């Protein structure tokens, strides 16, 4: 009895000590990754989440024109705006002018109704001097204030939570009654760009696979001495700046460039009808395929390196032809490498923007170029966030499909 009791205590003690030791190890491991985790949270996850919320939260109008926002909430968007509404608007404009925030308000409304920006800024300059009845005096300053569409645009802009930006990212526009319809045909651009982005990324992936597979095969089967040398040839461009490689392609492909000069020299084309190889989709495809090729070659190479040559030899000794041995025995074993390479190339390609910006011309630019444009030039960060959100959803969906079809566990990076 006593012995078993002592044993039980020992067991408990041992277990406790084991738990303690395991906990110590786990927490030590945890503390080691804490800096990385914090870094990721602060520098990566946080900003992305914050930025994505910008796509549907926009309090510019509601915070800067609070009284107008309140009164617009009770307005049904169809009846004639009342004198009271005009009076509140003028009062808000006077404050916004003093605080130097009228520009923000004007920019916000201008997004829903182009041409209203100067309406706000120029009226605000005179707002302090306006007298009742405000409806008349506002229309006196600018006739446009009588236009109900301006009020509808303000009502749309006053919503703090809006789907308007996501709608714009999908080439839809929001009507004043809250329903959505397709954007005017001549302003539809994002869907076109998105399909083009997917198409280019897909083609680049295919080209990289077609070019990268034989290279990786060669690297994996040649003797170490030669293959190391060749591997350096693959890695050297990988270590070179993207900008330099893209610019090099411009020198190669432009109509007075090396490739065209050679084609003219060999009489394949004549001097007046040189090929347009760059500043179009073809240029983007060529330059991106070249730049992304190492992302395909490296995973393929590491997977192929791990395939014992004896398998193919065995297949051949059992009577398989060279082709059958390759296709039925070798190729299936490289699938994890293909999977890894393809998804790497595709996902990197889908967000590419420097290369298309430089060599894309009019039909070779991608959705990321538009996002960049909204970030840096139009300063419509909300729309940029919505476009980024759409892109992220598309990538995740494709990733999910990929997982169902190929299986993400099948992927091998090395």
């Amino acid at each position, binding site marked *: 009895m006593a012995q078993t009791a002592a044993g039980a205590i020992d067991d408990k003690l041992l277990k406790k000590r084991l738990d303690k030791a395991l906990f110590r190890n786990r927490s030590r491991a945890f503390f080691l990754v804490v800096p990385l985790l914090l870094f990721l949270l602060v520098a990566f996850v946080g900003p992305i989440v914050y930025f994505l919320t910008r796509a549907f939260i926009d309090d510019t109008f509601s915070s800067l024109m609070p009284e107008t926002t309140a009164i617009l909430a009770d307005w049904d968007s169809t009846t004639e705006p009342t004198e009271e509404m005009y009076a509140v608007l003028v009062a808000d404009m006077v404050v916004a002018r003093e*605080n*130097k*925030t*009228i*520009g*923000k308000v*004007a*920019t916000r409304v*201008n*997004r829903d109704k*182009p*041409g*209203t*920006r*100067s309406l706000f*800024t120029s009226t605000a300059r005179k707002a302090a001097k306006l007298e009742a009845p405000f409806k008349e005096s506002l229309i006196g300053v600018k006739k446009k204030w009588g236009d109900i569409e301006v009020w509808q645009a303000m009502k749309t802009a006053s919503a703090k939570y809006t789907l308007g930006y996501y709608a714009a990212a999908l080439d839809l526009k929001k009507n004043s009654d809250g329903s959505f319809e397709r954007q005017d045909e*001549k*302003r*539809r*651009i994002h869907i*076109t*760009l998105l399909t*083009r982005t997917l198409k280019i990324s897909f083609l680049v992936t295919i080209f990289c696979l077609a070019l990268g597979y034989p290279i990786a095969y060669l690297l994996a089967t040649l003797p170490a001495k030669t293959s190391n040398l060749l591997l350096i040839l693959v890695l050297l461009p990988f270590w070179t700046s993207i900008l330099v490689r893209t610019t090099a392609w411009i020198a190669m492909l*432009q*109509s*007075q460039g090396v490739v065209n000069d050679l084609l003219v020299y060999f009489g394949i084309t004549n001097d007046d009808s040189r090929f347009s190889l760059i*500043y179009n989709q073809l240029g983007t495809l060529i330059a991106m395929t070249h730049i992304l090729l190492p992302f395909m070659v490296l995973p393929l190479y590491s997977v192929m390196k791990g395939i014992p040559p004896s398998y193919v030899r065995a297949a051949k000794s059992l009577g398989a032809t060279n082709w059958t041995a390759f296709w039925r025995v070798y190729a299936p074993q490289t699938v994890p490498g293909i999977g890894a390479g393809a998804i790497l190339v595709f996902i990197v390609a889908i967000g590419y923007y420097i290369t298309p*910006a430089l060599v894309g*011309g*009019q*039909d070779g630019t991608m959705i990321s170029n*538009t996002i960049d*444009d909204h*970030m*840096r*030039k*139009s*300063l*419509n960060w909300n729309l940029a966030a919505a476009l980024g959100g759409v892109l992220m959803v598309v990538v995740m969906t494709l990733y999910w499909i990929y997982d169902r079809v190929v299986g993400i566990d099948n992927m091998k990076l090395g």
Partner: protein
Amino acid sequence: MKRVTTVLAAALAATVGVANAADTVTVVSWGGAYTKSQIEAYHKPWIARTGNFIVSEDYNGGLAEIKAQVEAGNVKWDVVDVELSDAIRGCDEGLLEEFDISTFPAGTDGTAAADDFLEGTVYDCAVANIVWSTIYAYDSTKLSNAPSTIADFFDVEKFPGKRGIRKNPKANLEMALMADGVPAGEVYDVLETEEGVERAFAKLDSIKDSVVWWEAGAQPPQLLADGEVVMTTAYNGRIFNAVASEKKPFEIVWDGQVWDLDLFVIPKGAPNKEAAMDFVKFSTGTEPLAAQASWISYGPVRKSSSSLVGSFHDQPDLKMDVHMPTAPNNMKNALQNNFEFWADNQDQLNEQFNAWLAQ
């Protein structure tokens, strides 16, 4: 890219013995020959006068960086050279410090600053320093008969060959309308209407297949030099410098030029606001503005400067006055960029332009 002129400043400061009191002011501009002209005409004399340092940085225009710095409360830039539409927008959004023009130095001829600056070059938060222009240029060795009007640029039958055009609706729509016969004075009235915009796009459409699009100001001279295009729209100063410094056989066609301003602004909360203010006042003085014009063919905005504009800095025979966008001969059929029109319609026209490109 940072070009630091501090070495020179440090040497100077050491000799004068004021090293302790010196500020380091960050001045941001567009790079290339343009920044070079500003370093020679504004930075160096100001450094010599005050003993302060200047760090010169390049950027590609736009308000994004200023907006990000001001909103994050971490302003790094003291003085920025911006386009007019950005200056107005930045001011409206409260991103910029305000200027008081009455504190600016009078012209060398005694005219008060407020009267000395050309009309429409001084704003609440911005003071212009140069007039620049979008023109088109061609390689005279490649074309047997010389184009002379804006309509010629859009005439691919009379002048076959590729055209370089900036990938942006700004200035292009205006030029297209002028080429289509709209007088300069009516361009923006026509563009206000939907039919006017259609008309401009239809004109652009007529040469769409021959267009090589450019984005950075350094590209057009390169496109011309490489024989990639026979004519291209460009900023006049870039073409002038390719001709003057690199002896390129380029010619500028001034007919239908769209001129614009570059202005100095100070981001709100700039770290060295006082020194930055002093720099702007000094640089937009009569003499620095005139000196600037001997490095690049952008016109000074002070009336008192124009009589002081001399020759190109290293070529005494090359008189600068006839190469300015504001020279009477070049102004015969010229249009000033209308910032208000673009502030109102930029987003919509950008979308339409991009959709048109993608067709």
